[in-house]
């Protein structure tokens, strides 16, 4: 589904990703871990198409198609979804209206008519129940005054509505208490299928107890320096990241 070959990327002439190789197949869950500043969030933003990031070398293929030149919305239309580490507050736009617009614009891009209102309502009801989101919450301004947990639940709610092929969860666990973490993880797990894939970006192993990865990759200095099965996450939790750094430097 996603294939990244020798990806180099920079922001404002500062090189951040220095040769990423990664392949994600349908049905798989990949975890990307690593110390602060290793380039995890940059990788997520580059895949989602943030314009400030410059791809200097290499390529990102989605189902065989190079998506380098595509705008963020075009990537979204092709099924990429990024759950933000810090979801942006947008006063004046309600959660419902935002997601309606997102869905209908995606349908428009695919040459489809707007989703009928009753179908939309049904979908919203179904997915908000999955994420245990109160109806009142949906008429509030997007992310404005939301708690950390509400913001993240709202991200996964949007993911549930948009049903992406590839979901990238950027530090979705940060700021979540254990109940919210369970709800979010449960939501993600229910949406998982053999046809879609998830990349979980996290600093800690905690979330991976709930969303169990097939592969764990360690990012350091803009490169994937180690990959392994889910047990690698436990090892990182116990021993920290220093041994990886030493291994790399040695």
């Amino acid at each position, binding site marked *: 589904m996603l294939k990244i070959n020798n990806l180099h990327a920079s922001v404002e002439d500062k090189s951040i990703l220095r040769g990423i190789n990664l392949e994600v197949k349908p049905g798989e869950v990949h975890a990307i871990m690593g110390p602060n500043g290793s380039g995890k969030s940059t990788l997520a933003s580059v895949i*989602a*198409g*943030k*314009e400030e990031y410059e791809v200097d070398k290499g390529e990102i293929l989605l189902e065989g198609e190079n998506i380098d030149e595509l*705008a*963020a*919305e075009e*990537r*979204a*239309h092709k099924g990429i*979804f*990024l759950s*933000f580490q810090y*979801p*942006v*507050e*947008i*006063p*004046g*736009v*309600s959660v419902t*209206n*935002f*997601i309606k*617009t*997102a*869905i*209908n*614009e*995606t349908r428009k*891009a695919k040459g489809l008519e707007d989703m009928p209102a009753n179908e939309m309502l049904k979908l919203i009801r179904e997915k908000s129940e999955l994420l245990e989101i109160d109806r009142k919450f949906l008429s509030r*301004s997007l992310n404005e005054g939301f708690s950390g947990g509400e913001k993240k639940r709202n991200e996964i709610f*949007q993911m549930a509505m*948009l049903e992406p092929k590839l979901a990238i969860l950027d530090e979705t666990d940060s700021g979540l208490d254990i109940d919210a973490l369970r709800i979010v993880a449960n939501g993600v797990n229910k949406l998982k299928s053999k046809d879609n894939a998830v990349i979980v970006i996290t600093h800690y192993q905690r979330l991976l107890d709930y969303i169990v990865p097939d592969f764990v990759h360690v990012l350091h200095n803009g490169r994937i320096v180690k990959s392994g099965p889910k047990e690698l996450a436990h090892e990182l939790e116990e021993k920290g990241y220093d041994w990886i750094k030493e291994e790399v430097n040695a």
Partner: protein
Amino acid sequence: MDLKDKIVSSYLAFEDHLDDNSPLHDIRNQAIKTFEEKGFPTKKEEAWKYTSLKSILNQDYSVFPKQENALEYRDVKKYFIHDIDSYKIVFVDGRYSSHLSQTTHDGIDVCLMSSALSKPKYRIVIENYFNKAATKDSLSSLNTAFAGEGAYIHIRKNKLVEKPIQILHFCSGNESALMLQPRNLIVVDENAHVQIIERHQSLTDNPVLTNSVTEIFANKRAIVDYYKVQNDRETASLIDNTFISQKQESHCSVHTFSFGGKLTRNNLNFFQKGERIDSTLKGVTIIGNKQHVDHNTLVHHIEPNCESHQDYKGIFGDNATGVFNGKVVVEKEAQKANAFQANNNILISDKASINTKPQLEIFADDVKCSHGCTIGQLDESAMFYMRSRGIPEKEAKALLMYAFSNNVLSSVKIPEIKQRITKIIANKLGVNIGFDL
């Protein structure tokens, strides 16, 4: 001959038709004298520092249109808020159009200034109110000198007018360039309530300059909601002078939606002549190209325990220029005044500009006055967030801009107006999304 000379000499011709014994005659004579002395305002005057009339005064405007022009309703229907039942007072090239209008004398007077000025039964109201709120600046004086046609609305005590009143001024384009000077008088008696919508619309690209004066008197406990829809062609310019005189416990609001026109200057003045008055001034301006919109507001707090709320949002693209000059005067007697003012702006082009200036003159010592103005750009992180969810750049921008103006829209009490404004905004921003926020 420049425009000023042309106007002054046409006054002499106009004067021939006036009734010498009418008290209005003196008012007109005085007014044309004031205009003759002061002339059109220039950038040398503090209040006109950022708005130059030069580019619109160089046309050879007809001051009196020669012929009457009939318009078919179906051709102009789209400029009405037509999905609600309403009273309508419609003018074409400054002349009353009876077949487009729906007036009434049933408990309220919704009719014409020309009849109010000439018929004896309106004499007392005219004597008590006409030109009593308008200031004696040169442009209002110019209008006063020629005041002949416009809307005359008188709502009697305790009357709640259930249908809104629409005042429409069309310019047919039959003159190669036309100057219009509508004059509206609105008197709302004690405990009465009225909603009014005003629009100026040119139907061709022939230049038109409108110098409009509206006087509104809200007596004790009256409620007046006024909506100005400014979405004219970019060859039409408007100087809108509105004067609102409020008595105790009255509530008046004016929403000004400025999307069109070449040059628009809104002189909006509130005078609070009683206690516990509430005045609301709100506006949304979205312009581009070389458009210019100037909001020049005044709230004069004269008596104690009154409130005023000002909230103006502006979005400026291309080479558009905007001005906000908000003056609040709190007299010594006006203790416990609450005066709020906000002016927030977004510049979406490097060449667009806004000059914003709060001006507070406070002589009382126990008041709450706040003002804040901001000038910013669209939030880039919000843009990426929206786009990453599949909302294309143009639509994402539009959604952010709509959300930015939503504070003002949310206080519009007539849903059909809100829908209409929303549609105009979507059109203006070139998107086809519902914004049903």
